[in-house]
C-alpha cells in the first residue's frame, strides 16, 4: 500500500517537474529556493505549467491586476481624448491610479439592498454565477506555450462559454424584477441574437483557414497573422466583441441615459462591483481570443532572458492593445439605437462573416502553402 502511494507521489512529482515554465533569468533564485525544504516544492508547483497558466498568468492573477488597473486606464485614456482629465484626485500626483481600489473598498462596505419585488435567491446568486462562464475560458487561452488545458476543441469550448454570458445577464435582469431591468434584459436578448451568429461564423472562418481549432497550434504557427490573411473576419470579430462586451457604441442594453444601468440597475454594493468587472473580464477573454486568432498569439521577437515568459509578454501586450482599442470606441462613436444595432448585426455583420468564410475557403483550398 505504501509503495503504491509513494509511486503515485513520485509520478505526480515527475509530471510536475517535466512540465515547468522555463525562465532563465530567474534560474539562480529558483536554485536557491529549491534548497529550502518546502520552498522548492512550492516554487516548482507554482511554475507547473497548467497551474501557472490558470492561476498566475494569463489566468486569474493577471486578470485581477488588469481589473484593478484597466478601468483606470480606460477612464484616463477616454478623458485625455475628450479633453478631460479622468480620475485624478485620489493620489493626484500619480494621476488617481488607485481609483478602482478606492471604488472597490466602497463597493465592499456598501449595504447590499435586495428590494421587495426581487426574486431573492436568484438575485443574490446570479452575480456570482456569472463568474463561471467568464473565468472558465481563461483555462483554454494560451499565451505562447503556456496554457492550462491544451485540447483540439479549445475554440469550441471558449465559444460555448462566451455564448453563455448573455444568459446570465438575462437571469440578472429577470431576478431584478424591475421595469428598467426588464427593458435592458430584452434589449440584451435582442443584441445577443444580433451579434452571436456573425461572431461564431467569423471564428468558424478562422478555424477553416487554419484547419485546426487547437489554440496553441494556431497561436504558434501563424507565419502571416490572421488579420492580414482574413481582415474581414477580424473586423467582424472585433465588432462582435464590442457588441458582446456591451460597451459604447453598442451599449444598448445598459444605456445609462435611458435605462440607468439596464439589467443591473437594482444591484448595489458588492453585487454591483462584481457585475461592473464582468464586462472587463469579457473584454479580456475576447481580446485574448482575438490576439490568438488574428494577431499571432504569443509570437514575436524572442526575449532570451525571459525564456517561455517571452511569449506571455507579447500575448499580454497585444491583448492590452486590443482591449484598449475596444474601449476607445466609446469616445469615437455615439450609441446606436436598438433597431440600428440589430440592423448592423443581422445585415452587414452577418453578410461580412459569410464573405469571410468564402475568403477562408478560397485561401485554404487555393493557396495551400500560405498557412
Amino acid at each position, binding site marked *: 500500500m505504501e509503495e503504491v502511494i509513494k509511486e503515485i507521489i513520485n509520478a505526480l512529482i515527475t509530471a510536475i517537474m517535466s512540465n515547468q515554465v522555463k525562465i532563465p533569468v530567474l534560474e539562480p533564485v529558483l536554485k536557491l529556493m529549491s534548497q529550502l525544504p518546502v520552498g522548492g516544492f512550492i516554487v516548482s508547483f507554482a511554475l507547473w505549467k497548467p497551474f501557472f497558466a490558470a492561476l498566475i498568468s494569463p489566468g486569474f492573477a493577471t486578470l485581477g491586476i488588469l481589473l484593478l488597473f484597466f478601468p483606470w486606464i480606460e477612464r484616463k485614456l477616454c*478623458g485625455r481624448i475628450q479633453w*478631460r482629465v479622468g480620475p*485624478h484626485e485620489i493620489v493626484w500626483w500619480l494621476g488617481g491610479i488607485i481609483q478602482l481600489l478606492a471604488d472597490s473598498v466602497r463597493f465592499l462596505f456598501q449595504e447590499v439592498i435586495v428590494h421587495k419585488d426581487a426574486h431573492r435567491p436568484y438575485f443574490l446568486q446570479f452575480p456570482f454565477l456569472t463568474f463561471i462562464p467568464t473565468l472558465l475560458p481563461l483555462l483554454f487561452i494560451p499565451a505562447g506555450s503556456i496554457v492550462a488545458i491544451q485540447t483540439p476543441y479549445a475554440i469550441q469550448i471558449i465559444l460555448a462559454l462566451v455564448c453563455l454570458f448573455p444568459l446570465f445577464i438575462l437571469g440578472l435582469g429577470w431576478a431584478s424584477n424591475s421595469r428598467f431591468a426588464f427593458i435592458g434584459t430584452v434589449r440584451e436578448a435582442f443584441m445577443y441574437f444580433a451579434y452571436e451568429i456573425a461572431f461564431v461564423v467569423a471564428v468558424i472562418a478562422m478555424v477553416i483557414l487554419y484547419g485546426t481549432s487547437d489554440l496553441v497550434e494556431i497561436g504558434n504557427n501563424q507565419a502571416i497573422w490572421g488579420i492580414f490573411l482574413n481582415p474581414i473576419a477580424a473586423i467582424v470579430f472585433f465588432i462582435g466583441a464590442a457588441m458582446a462586451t456591451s460597451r459604447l457604441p453598442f451599449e444598448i442594453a445598459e444605456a445609462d441615459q435611458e435605462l440607468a444601468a439596464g439589467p443591473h440597475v437594482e444591484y448595489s454594493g458588492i453585487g454591483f462591483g462584481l457585475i461592473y468587472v464582468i464586462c472587463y473580464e469579457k473584454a479580456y477573454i475576447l481580446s485574448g481570443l482575438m490576439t490568438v486568432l488574428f494577431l499571432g498569439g504569443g509570437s514575436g521577437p524572442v526575449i532570451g532572458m525571459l525564456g517561455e515568459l517571452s511569449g506571455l509578454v507579447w500575448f499580454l501586450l497585444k491583448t492590452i492593445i486590443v482591449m484598449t482599442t475596444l474601449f*476607445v470606441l466609446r469616445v*469615437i*462613436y455615439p450609441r446606436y439605437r436598438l433597431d440600428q444595432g440589430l440592423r448592423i448585426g443581422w445585415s452587414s455583420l452577418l453578410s461580412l462573416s459569410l464573405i469571410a468564410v468564402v475568403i477562408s475557403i478560397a485561401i485554404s483550398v487555393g493557396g495551400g502553402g500560405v498557412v
Partner: protein
Amino acid sequence: MKKVIVKEQGAGEKVVRHARAFGVSLSESVYPHTATVFYPRERKKMPPNLRGYLMFKPEKCISCWQCAFICPANAIQMKEARNGRYYPNVDYGKCIFCHFCVDSCSGGALYSTKIHDVAYRDMDEMLTLTEEMIEQPEIVREDKKSVEYVIDRDDLHLKRRREQDTLFVEPTPPVEIPMVSQCIDRASCIGCRVCEQVCEHNAISSIMERNVLRMKIDTERCTGCGLCVKECSMQILRLVRK
C-alpha cells in the same frame, strides 16, 4: 419647407473617416489638448480688468452716491463714517459683479481686484463694511503655477508658468473732469434749502437778503458730486465744467 439632405458617402470615404477618427483619438491620447485648470494647486491667469472683489480708497471718494444709485442689485448702501462723510458698503449676498459702481465712480475710489474666490460663513458676513474694503484681504494661496489659455494653430492650449499671479492690480486713474454745480435760474428758487442740507462738503450756504433766501455755491469747495442737482426740487441746478 426645406429638407436637410445628408450627402450619401461612398464606402471609401466612410473608411477614411473612420480611420481619421481613430487617428485623432490616437494623437489626442498621446498629446491631449486638455483645458482643465487644477484650481487650488494652480490658478488661471486673469486679465487685469477682471470684475472681481471690490476694494475702496476713501481719500478719493467724493461721496457722490453714484455707486449706490447705479447698483442694479441694490447691493451698495452708503453708511455714515466717523468724519461725517458717507462711504459705500457692499453686500456680496446681492452683488452681481456687474461693476457699474466701478465704472460710475468719478474719483476712481472703487476699484476691482482679480480675487474671484471669496468664502463666507453666513449671510451677515457677506455685508462688507467700508473698513474691510480698504485693507487688502488675507488670502490663503495654495497655487504654485499660473495658467494661461493660449490659442495657436486654431486650437486651445494651456501655458503653465511657475509663478504666482498677482491678484491686486493698481487701478488706472480715471480721467478727471472737474465739474461744479451751478444754478441756472435763480428766479425760480423757492428756497427750500434741500441743496444745502444734502451737500456733504458744506459748499452751499444760504443768505437772507431782503426777506428772500438766496443760495450761494462755493466753487472752491464744490467737488461736483451732483447730489444737489439730483435733489433740487425745482431742477434748476446743473453740473458744468469748472
